[in-house]
């Protein structure tokens, strides 16, 4: 056990060091690369806490998709490479901010040490009704059954964010597609990589979603992997980003929420209330919702990285 504790100390120190570097370096590109590393290390930290569901989501979203988003942004604003400390607050302001944050961190450290250990837990309640949902993974049960309303609204937030991103397009590009991953010439090694990774990635995404019922995984991790593969296809130039006006795209984006809402409304008449699942049918309903959600999450995350439309369909 002591070796395990030593490993955790090393991991925690490394995470802190990478965070210090992310916020301290002058070079914005170095900061973004450090942030990608930070996401990967956090995923290791989540495994160290025995939260594999979170580790999967963090690995796919935090390290992968966020990394692509920020690297792309950093390359677009290349001219402003270095952080300009002349515009930051004077040293008094910085010192006061530092003191405030130090006080906050110390308070939180005290909280960590003083809080009851073991903490009050809802784990017994979460496992008690597990058999009624037909699921084996309590985290998925919380996401899809006990707190399904949160998950549904979270899908709405994702879609709203995408609407927000799209609404930043210029008028003349509206209805067009994002200029993302456009290449002057085909890039053969990248096409090879995409052709190898795409089938494996799609299988891995579906697999993670499917085992999510009984083992760590689920719609979020699976959808994030699918979106990463989709972005890779854009980068390789094997496909173009769909136009925002496309009806098919809009159906895929909203199918998760529509099915979720339909199941919720059906619950009012067939079971106890909104989003209540009728006894015995919980598992199939959850699976149908999750299929739609995985598709929608994958499409939404991919389009969030691709950004607002910047090219009209007919020039």
């Amino acid at each position: 056990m002591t070796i395990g504790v030593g490993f955790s100390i090393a991991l925690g120190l490394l995470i802190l060091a990478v965070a210090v570097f992310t916020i301290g370096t002058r070079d914005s590109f170095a900061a973004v690369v450090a942030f990608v590393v930070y996401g990967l290390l956090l995923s290791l930290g989540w495994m160290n806490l025995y939260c594999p569901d979170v580790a999967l989501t963090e690995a796919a979203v935090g390290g992968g998709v966020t990394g692509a988003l920020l690297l792309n942004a950093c390359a677009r604003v290349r001219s402003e490479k270095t952080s300009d400390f002349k515009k930051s607050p004077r040293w008094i302001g910085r010192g006061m901010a530092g003191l405030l944050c130090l006080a906050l961190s110390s308070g939180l450290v005290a909280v960590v040490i003083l809080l009851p250990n073991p903490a009050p837990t809802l784990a017994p309640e979460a496992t008690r009704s597990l058999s009624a949902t037909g699921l084996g993974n309590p985290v998925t049960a919380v996401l899809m059954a006990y707190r399904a309303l949160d998950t549904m609204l979270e899908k709405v937030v994702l879609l709203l964010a995408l609407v927000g991103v799209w609404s930043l397009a210029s008028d003349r590009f509206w209805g067009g597609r994002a200029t993302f991953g456009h290449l002057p010439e085909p890039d053969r090694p990248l096409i090879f990589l995409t052709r190898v990774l795409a089938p494996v990635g799609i299988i891995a995404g579906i697999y993670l979603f499917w085992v999510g019922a009984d083992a760590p995984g689920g719609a979020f991790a699976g959808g994030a992997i699918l979106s990463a593969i989709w972005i890779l296809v854009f980068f390789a130039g094997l496909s173009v980003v769909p136009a925002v006006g496309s009806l098919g795209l809009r159906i895929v984006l909203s199918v998760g929420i529509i099915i979720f809402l339909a199941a919720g409304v059906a619950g009012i008449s067939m079971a106890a209330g909104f989003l209540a699942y009728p006894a015995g049918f919980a598992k199939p309903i959850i699976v149908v919702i999750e299929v739609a959600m995985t598709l929608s999450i994958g499409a939404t995350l991919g389009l969030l990285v691709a950004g607002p439309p910047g090219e009209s369909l007919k020039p």
Partner: protein
Amino acid sequence: MSIAVALNILTIVAVSGGAFFFLAGTVGLLRFPDTLTRLHALTKADNVGLGLIMIGLLPRVAWPFDALKLIVVWVLVLVASAVSSQLIGRKLWRGGDGS
């Protein structure tokens, strides 16, 4: 019993070898004089290192399916590393240091 001991020795030897290759990769990344040589050190060393660690871990997994997944992980990293180093190398070759 002797098979278990042999497998344990295999694990220790392979994992130690893998760790040594990670050491080599890091030393190369830190000590080699320019970017292309550092790319060379990185891509050769860490793939062999990961491969040896995978070989060491193969006897330790509970299910055969997990062993298959370990091999898939290694092959994926090989492909990813080969292609990404090619992309980085070409970017360096064509467009200066890319900084």
